[in-house]
């Protein structure tokens, strides 16, 4: 059986007034059925755009998928018609977003919003769909679901709204759930609740999760495999344990050592110098080279490829992995 999702050198560019933004620039990774993949990176690294590209929801203009391919269950998403895409969205692939405050339509009740997808994809009548919505709310642990189903988003707390979002996403039993920073806007204690819920539901429903976040703690807790993105590219891919034990890419390394730790003593924090590069005006060669402490000459000139270093670990770095000089040459 084919992989659930496979990205092959996906390129999504934005053509803005300031210039072309290479938001996603040749990203490749895959997700197995039932697996949780963490995608980690800082703001603007292209992780959200990658997710939107998978759903073909990149706002056009100014954005456009200009290259590569996305295979879902072996079929190219990019070659599907818009109608076929609509069948896929919310049904096979669902998505939840960072801001539970703004991601729900304020003028419709929670029930209506959940039921809408059920009606559409499962062909249920409105009343049946609403009943199913109640079940879903129960599933995501919302107390008093019969009442909540008739309430508007503003009547719920942030945590509750995120639960509604999850209920909506899961209502059609998707094979893949993409969660874009699902807990970033929530308080710590609520974040714990939501993460716990997602773990439970995954166990129960068995879908694959693509978890996008900048929080390495969340990744460590939730994911089995991790993809690290920087400036529109995947710089490292590894299993969680391996990544945290020994990060290969200098960026991953810097990231891990620059966060304050609760559970271990720390002196002065490590710092990744400089700024995230301007997406319109990326540095030549390796995009991380201006901030990298290990820069060599080649880093300034040529972009490294993502190379398999064995054991499911891939890295794109001239210094750490030789950057597949041979292959490129």
């Amino acid at each position: 059986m084919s992989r659930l999702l496979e990205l092959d050198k996906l390129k999504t560019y934005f053509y803005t007034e300031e210039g072309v933004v290479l938001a996603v620039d040749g990203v490749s990774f895959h997700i197995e059925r039932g697996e949780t993949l963490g995608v980690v990176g800082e703001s603007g690294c292209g992780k959200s755009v990658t997710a939107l590209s998978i759903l073909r929801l990149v706002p056009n203009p100014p954005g456009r998928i200009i290259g590569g391919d996305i295979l879902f269950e072996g079929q190219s998403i990019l070659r599907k018609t818009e109608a076929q895409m609509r069948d896929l969205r919310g049904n096979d692939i669902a998505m939840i977003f960072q801001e539970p405050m703004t991601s729900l339509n304020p003028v419709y009740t929670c029930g209506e919003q959940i039921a809408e997808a059920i009606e559409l994809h499962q062909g249920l009548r409105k009343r049946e769909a609403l009943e199913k919505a109640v079940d879903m709310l129960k599933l995501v642990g919302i107390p008093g679901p019969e009442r909540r189903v008739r309430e508007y988003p503003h009547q719920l707390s942030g945590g509750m709204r995120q639960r509604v979002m999850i209920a909506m996403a899961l209502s059609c039993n998707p094979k893949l759930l993409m969660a874009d920073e699902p807990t970033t806007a929530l308080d710590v204690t609520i974040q714990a609740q939501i993460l716990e819920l997602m773990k439970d539901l995954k166990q129960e429903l068995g879908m694959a999760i693509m978890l996008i976040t900048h929080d390495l703690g969340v990744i460590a807790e939730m994911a089995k495999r991790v993809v690290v993105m920087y400036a529109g590219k995947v710089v490292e891919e590894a299993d969680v344990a391996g990544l945290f034990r020994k990060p290969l890419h200098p960026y991953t390394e810097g990231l891990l050592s620059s966060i304050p730790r609760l559970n271990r003593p720390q002196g002065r924090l490590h710092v990744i110098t400089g700024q995230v590069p301007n997406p319109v005006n990326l540095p030549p060669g390796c995009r991380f080279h201006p901030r990298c402490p290990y820069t060599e000459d080649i880093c300034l000139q040529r972009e490294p490829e993502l190379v398999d270093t064995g054991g499911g670990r891939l890295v794109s770095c001239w210094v750490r992995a030789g950057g597949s000089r041979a292959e490129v040459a």
Partner: protein
Amino acid sequence: MPGKRRQVAVSGEEPRGDVLVEVKDLKKWFPVTGGVFGRLVGHVKAVDGVSFYIKPGETLGLVGESGCGKTTTGRVILRLLEPTEGAVYFEGANIFDLNREQMRRLRRQMQIVFQDPYSSLNPRMTVGDIVGEALEIHGVARGRSKEKRVRELLDVVGLNPQHIRRYPHEFSGGQRQRIGVARALALNPKLIICDEPVSALDVSIQSQILNLLEDLQAEFNLTYLFIAHNLSVVKHISDRVGVMYLGQVVELGGAEELFANPLHPYTEALLSAIPLPDPELKRDRIILEGDVPSPLNPPSGCHFHTRCRWVQPICRDENPPFVDVGDEHFVACHLRKTREKQ
């Protein structure tokens, strides 16, 4: 006034001599109106009896979830908001007794760095104007000398002094936060209130700013009140940490001590809720049920009793006192003793 008045066990009536700032039983209630003729229907008790002190040169961290009143506390200390009750002593003088002019002069001593590096800088002003305005207002420097001082400040916070004529949007988030720090530093203040200064920044930038703040503290002997929701960050930068819940400080102590040995069940739960970037670490989590209650109508007795797994009958009726359990470790919990025994 509903509920029992909280006992204050921080100190006596007189301000302590050895501290820079002392906050005593501070309250800030926001009136809520409604009904036919805008009747007062209640108060949002954003800050509901908070007491603590900050010693010169130290960093006091204040953590809590959104809506717990930590930001409001910072604003009231700066007198950007007028308090409902209580006092804030700065170098022994209650700032709420000061008149406009005295307050204006006092503002040179205390400054603030904001959370959002985007909205805290006036988009229509140049960096030079933003940083230099305070100098001009307080008659410290004008014209050439102002510009010279601004360039110095930019250099201090790690920005290119050449960029003095640029506008905020020409900078990245981290650089903007540096501008905010420069603005706070302009008048050589003694106290800087850092209101979530790194929470809007990327991980890789966060550490830059934290290090900058530490360096500046060492260089200029600054005192920080560091407000944040990220416990890791607070623990890293603070000497002492206070934990707030629903307008009250529930626990306060030395950073290492508090994180190693949390006494309040809320602190405990908070600590265990944080996902740690360490996949091999296995631990038991305490998941708090439900949401934080509304500050408009906080629970009776101990505000935390609705979500506390140790709750006792007394917790529903009586607001626990905030007491020092030794070594400047304060906690407000009825069950502290009981649990210690367990």
